[in-house]
């Protein structure tokens, strides 16, 4: 079927102007075709003998369907008429092909072609619209009983499946911004009274519902720590008031939201064999006065600090689209506060402290953090943070970086694990060390170097 116009996709063969065996010349009209617009005589582009007419008059076929086979002029092949029921051929041969076509198409028996085509696509029979609908509404087509012809899944089937599912709880009417803000501030929208049009919850309503004064949505100035527990609070009243806890919660929310929004994190993890470190630690503790005992945390912190010296790309800040290396290694130590909340004060020059010194500093720092006695430099000068959730029983910490720092090191619980050691199975104390790093500042290879360094340093505890 020739293309007879820009908008023609198919045509109906009305009449053959030539018969099988007739001699035709290039340019001769050979057939009459009806298109949506008009009736047109089709000319042929080859000279030869009309061997075979493939399409019966009255049949509508797509553009590109061969209509007839023209053979060389001298050859007079036996000819056959088109099959009674014409069927579109998938061939893209131009009309009046000069070569014999693939075997003449069989008449299509059985169901209508459209249905049989649908059947071929997969064992679930459903149209694209229905498939799309099912996918969109999370309905498993395979689980549906199709009520359409031939077991076809219909739109109604999918919609019924959707309706059958438990109705979700009513959606709160809230502005998009209020919804976002509620998520950031940890406010349950369902508990907020809306004052907008038709009682819609708006940003101001969410802020009112959030405890304490409105949290700033703008991030804290770069370089400044987010949290500074009030130093005036006496140690005896260490349990912070609800207000303070809420304020701290909001501040953390703001900071962490900013961190997660602005910092493209990447995460690395490795298991570190602590056998040598723990042996050394027990030996040390056995020989030391009780007040000078060390915790595994001290070794981990020291290793983290020394590794940061080796991989300075992770020790510093990302400010104004570039990395600034920290001056000295000041480990931010994540300290969870009683009554909730978190601070990460700095252990200054952690890489230079001997282990007993480091242990004392750690004790001191944690005690002051928990009693609100931190010094200004401690809250603002950490260059890399370490969080140790081993006490809480977890094995792996995938932390959020404390902006503008570029890395956060996590340690989990020291656990005894079966390990292959020198070809034998042994039980060893193992800790999972993780690194969350800012992909703007470094790439995975740098992070890998860091974790490898931590692991190596912990194998030689006496050198820490």
């Amino acid at each position: 079927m020739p293309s007879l116009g820009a908008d023609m996709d198919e045509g109906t063969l009305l009449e053959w102007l030539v018969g099988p065996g007739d001699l035709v010349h290039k340019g001769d009209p050979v057939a009459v075709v009806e298109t949506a617009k008009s009736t047109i005589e089709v000319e042929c582009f080859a000279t030869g003998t009309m061997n075979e007419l493939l399409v019966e008059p009255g049949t509508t076929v797509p553009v590109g369907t061969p209509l007839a086979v023209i053979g060389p002029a001298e050859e007079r092949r036996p000819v056959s008429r088109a099959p009674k029921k014409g069927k579109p051929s998938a061939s893209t041969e131009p009309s009046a092909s000069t070569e014999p076509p693939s075997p003449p198409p069989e008449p299509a028996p059985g169901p209508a072609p459209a249905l049989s085509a649908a059947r071929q696509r997969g064992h679930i029979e459903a149209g694209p619209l229905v498939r799309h609908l099912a996918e969109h509404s999370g309905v498993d087509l395979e689980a549906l009983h199709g009520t359409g012809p031939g077991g076809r899944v219909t739109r109604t089937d999918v919609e019924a499946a959707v309706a059958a599912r438990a109705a979700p709880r009513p959606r709160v009417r809230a502005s998009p911004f209020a919804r976002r803000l509620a998520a950031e501030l940890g406010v349950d929208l369902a508990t907020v009274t809306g004052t907008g049009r038709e009682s819609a919850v708006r940003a101001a309503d969410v802020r009112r519902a959030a405890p304490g004064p409105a949290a700033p949505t703008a991030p804290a100035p770069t370089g400044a720590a987010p949290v500074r527990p009030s130093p005036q609070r006496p140690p005896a009243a260490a349990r912070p008031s609800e207000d303070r806890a809420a304020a701290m919660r909001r501040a953390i929310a703001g900071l962490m939201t900013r961190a997660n929004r602005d910092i493209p994190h990447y995460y690395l993890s490795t298991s570190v064999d602590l056998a040598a470190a723990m042996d050394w630690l027990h030996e040390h503790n056995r020989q030391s006065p009780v007040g000078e005992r060390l915790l595994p945390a001290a070794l981990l912190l020291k290793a983290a600090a020394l590794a940061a010296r080796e991989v300075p790309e992770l020790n510093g800040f990302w400010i104004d689209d570039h990395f600034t290396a920290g001056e000295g290694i000041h480990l931010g130590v994540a300290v969870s506060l009683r009554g909730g909340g978190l601070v990460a004060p700095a252990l200054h020059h952690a890489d230079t402290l001997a282990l007993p010194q480091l242990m004392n500093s750690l004790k001191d720092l944690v005690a002051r953090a928990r009693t609100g006695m931190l010094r200004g430099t401690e809250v603002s000068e950490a260059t890399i943070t370490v969080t140790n959730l081993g006490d809480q029983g977890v094995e792996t910490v995938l932390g959020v970086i404390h902006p503008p720092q570029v890395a956060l090191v996590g340690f989990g619980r020291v656990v005894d694990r079966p390990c292959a050691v020198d070809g034998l199975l042994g039980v060893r104390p193992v800790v999972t060390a993780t690194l969350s790093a800012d992909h703007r500042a470094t790439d995975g290879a740098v992070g890998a170097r860091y974790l490898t360094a931590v692991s190596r340093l912990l194998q030689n505890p006496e050198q820490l």
Partner: protein
Amino acid sequence: MVRESISRVLPGADVAALGPDDAFRDVLEMDSLDFLSFVEVLSERSGVRIEDEDSRRLTTLSAAADFLAAHTR
């Protein structure tokens, strides 16, 4: 003595409410640093040197009392 040691380490903790068989480390959410301090205080007050390995046995008030009783002779 055990209660007092805990109070020294965790000034705000409600030690009176602790039962003799409560796992106080968990109830009071003591971390390793807190526990180390507790061991330190207890050791100092009781005059008993508590080794690392032994400290793991100090999980409840009664267990701690038993331990001290066994070692103060």
